[in-house]
């Protein structure tokens, strides 16, 4: 009754193989040379330009108590290194920062999940949580000193208050942006309740969560520096914030610059070593990273 001479089914396999080959493009990783030219060279040039401008400006200002020379600042670094203090300053602050951040992670994650999933909790504390993000965390230093005294707990409290809202909000927006299609697909496969959260909601919300972590770290580091500068107290050990405050009281401008540069570089380094790779990995594995 119909034209059954053709054999479309056998034919389909070969056509399909051709289509598959035509439609997929090979994506390779960039070479070492490309990475150097595109990623490493530009910041090196930028730093060189800043140093050059600084060297030119120094004789114009001609006042080492206002603008120290690049060599004086370099000397401050060298002294601290030779005395064996440099790594100690860094470690004091970084260990505080990372430990505080870890606590913030432990609190912020379940909190974010609660706010995202429970309508009542969201209505109750959702707006406060996003409002807290815009409160400069340095504002928490005075009350934290009064509540907890001049000690490490107070530093951690300030970090938590700075980072928890970012982490929780990141997770909330991550969960909010999960495409409903994924949830429906999960449900038809039997991923409901806790299994749905574990297998679908959380992995789908990961990009937003990681963005929250990144911001949470930036806030942790800022609040910690504020706490160290304001609550500088010898027994607490000298972190980078205290170093800056000590330099100010000693009117040692080279040391002030040293401290500021250290704070900047450590913040950048942690981001570059931990959070940016994490973010890139999450985005790349989902095909969300557009190659620049």
């Amino acid at each position: 009754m119909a034209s059954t001479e053709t054999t479309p089914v056998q034919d389909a396999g070969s056509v399909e193989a051709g289509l598959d080959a035509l439609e997929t493009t090979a994506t390779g990783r960039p070479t070492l040379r490309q990475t150097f030219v595109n990623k490493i060279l530009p910041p090196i040039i930028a730093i060189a330009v800043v140093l050059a401008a600084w060297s030119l400006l120094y004789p114009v200002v001609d006042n080492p108590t206002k603008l120290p020379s690049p060599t004086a600042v370099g000397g401050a670094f060298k002294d601290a290194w030779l005395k064996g203090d440099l790594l100690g300053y860094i470690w004091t602050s970084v260990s505080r920062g990372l430990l505080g951040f870890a606590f913030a992670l432990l609190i912020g994650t379940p909190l974010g999940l609660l706010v995202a999933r429970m309508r009542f909790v969201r209505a109750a504390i959702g707006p406060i949580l996003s409002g807290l993000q815009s409160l400069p965390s340095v504002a928490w230093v005075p009350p934290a000193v009064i509540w907890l005294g001049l000690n490490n707990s107070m530093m951690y409290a300030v970090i938590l208050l700075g980072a928890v809202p970012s982490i929780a909000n990141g997770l909330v927006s991550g969960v909010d942006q999960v495409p409903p299609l994924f949830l429906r697909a999960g449900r038809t496969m039997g991923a409901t309740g806790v299994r749905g959260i574990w297998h679908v909601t959380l992995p789908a919300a990961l990009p937003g969560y990681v963005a929250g972590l990144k911001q949470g770290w930036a806030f942790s580091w800022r609040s910690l520096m504020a706490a160290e500068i304001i609550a500088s107290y010898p027994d607490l050990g000298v972190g980078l914030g205290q170093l800056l405050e000590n330099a100010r009281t000693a009117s040692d401008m080279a040391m002030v610059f040293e401290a500021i540069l250290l704070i900047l570089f450590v913040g950048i380094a942690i981001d570059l070593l931990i959070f940016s790779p994490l973010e890139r990995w999450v985005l790349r594995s989902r095909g969300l990273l557009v190659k620049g």
Partner: protein
Amino acid sequence: MATTLAKAAESVAYAARLEHVSKSFATPGGQQLVLDDISIDVAPGEFVTLLGASGCGKSTLLNLVAGLDRPTAGSITTDGRPALMFQEHALFPWLTAGKNIELALKLRGVAKTERRGKAEELLELVRLKGAYGKRVHELSGGMRQRVALARALAQESNLLLMDEPFAALDAITRDVLHDELTRIWAETGLSVLFVTHNVREAVRLAQRVVLLSSRPGRIAREWQVDIPQPRRIEDAPVAELSIEITEVLRGEIRRHGQH
């Protein structure tokens, strides 16, 4: 034939049975009746296409059968939880093609040691042997839908629901996937309820075409499609029946313009 069918009928006489199903949604303008008194039986191993204009309630109906939503009236019985395939592939981008399939196996309770092998088998069934470790974004549209089909098959349900799964594909790819679906349906003995607004696609694939009218969605007519498989979408008998069905569909749509 009658005796064997009667024997099968004692265990499961249908893969899905919809009895007087109605669905209305609460809208700002009051209750909107989307589906009205739909009764359909899908026999085990049967391939049924549900045809209707956009917005007539096809997706709503499939969601009801999939158990994602409840009917306002009537009852739906299925033999186990049906698998559902969407127009968008709905694969999880954080998993590879193979792991997407393995997740379906895991949620079904398949032991960890068996999952990998089964996933590879299913990929082979949809002719994507080398795609196990591929990320979703590395696959073409047609390949994604085939992985999605493999994932749906991994659920090992007796009923596969498909909601315009090939609508977003180009004509050549769609054509090939029609062939594949027909082959896999014949190999697995699945029952399929396939939704589409494309008349030729409906005729190309189905043993039975059910036409839905719009606003509210009601069963307008049914056609038995006796053209033997394998068919091609450009075959003369497919075209003939498509023209007949299109005329009825147009008549249905025309009624809405008259008042």
